[in-house]
């Protein structure tokens, strides 16, 4: 039997998927990440959505500029280590006042095993803020749905780039013993 905590830990990807459906997100660009694995699978199985696998996160930033110019809404799914890759491409969003929704799963901040994740994890929020992106953070599983929903509205209703940081505490520990 699942505990409440385990239930919360497994439903948030479904809740994000429901927000995408409700808000008309049709393009999903991603660099694979374990934290987003379930959400990516759900989007791939959904006929109204088109998923695009990227070689680097900045491709997704550029792609979503084109998506919105063409009248579609998209989202970029990525891990905190990829935020640094996006910085110059984000200038397009500030200069053209384009909406952008980024969902960033955090590494390097809570219970991390890999020390190489720590530098980018520590500077993710400030790097995004410095690049003109509004940053929201979801610290607990039960906050994720509303934070993603509010960020989606903010991004597309006000034409601003918005990132949601899904904190590592929500994602749980990575088991390195197997």
């Amino acid at each position, binding site marked *: 039997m699942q505990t409440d905590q385990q239930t919360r830990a497994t439903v948030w990807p479904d809740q994000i998927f429901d927000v995408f459906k409700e808000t008309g997100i049709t393009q999903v660009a991603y660099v694979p990440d374990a934290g987003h694995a379930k959400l990516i699978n759900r989007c791939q199985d959904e006929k109204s959505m088109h998923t695009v696998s990227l070689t680097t996160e900045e491709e997704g930033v550029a792609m979503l500029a084109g998506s*919105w*110019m063409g009248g579609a809404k998209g989202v970029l799914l990525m891990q905190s280590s990829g935020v640094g890759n996006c910085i110059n491409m984000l*200038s397009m969003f500030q200069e053209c*006042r384009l909406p952008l929704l980024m969902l960033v799963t955090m590494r390097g901040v809570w219970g991390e095993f890999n020390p190489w994740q720590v530098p980018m994890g520590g500077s993710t929020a400030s790097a995004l803020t410095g690049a003109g992106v509004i940053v929201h953070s979801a610290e607990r599983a039960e906050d994720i749905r509303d934070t993603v929903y509010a960020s989606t509205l903010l991004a597309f209703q006000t034409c601003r780039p918005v990132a949601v940081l899904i904190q590592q505490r929500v994602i749980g520990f990575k088991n390195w013993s197997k």
Partner: protein
Amino acid sequence: MATKLKTPAGLDRRKVVAALLADRGDALVVTGLGSPTYDTYAAGDHDLNFYLWGGMGGAAMVGLGLALAQPKRRVLVITGDGEMLMGLGSLATIAVDAPKNLAIAVIDNGHYGETGMQRAHTGRGVDITGMAQAAGFKSSTTVRSMADLNEWLTTFHRKPGPVFGDIKVSAAPAPMALPLRDGTAIRHRFRAALLGTDALK
């Protein structure tokens, strides 16, 4: 050591881009920063030109997003060799996604024209046509003459994509021609022309 420019040989970039856009129909055009943006403007300003002045390496991916959002319209990306080299991974991404309505033309002078004419890898033997082909583009062509170009135009405008062309042009500078550069103005104009003025609400 400063790079010594050889006597400019090859195609006139302005004539090339004018030919690429002469029969653009209802195509949507994305231009890579620097000379391709100026060349496209010089060929005739158009509301459906998305002139990029930054975001180097992103032109092809902007084209992909647009092509996915507007599957019934042809999307033409006109960019430079240095810009394309900065986004080589996007050739793999686009080939895998395989949008039928996307075509990319690289105006390849083998140099970085905006920054002092340093040689680019394309001017040192790197074959980006081969890279696009190896990535899996449906069509990938190097264009070296106006006759080649005239033959390739049908592919650029009509052949199921993704289509890639690397057009070898002279490194000679072209006269100044600067389009609108305010990003919000460019995006307002483009979206109003494509989606109607309701898109501005």
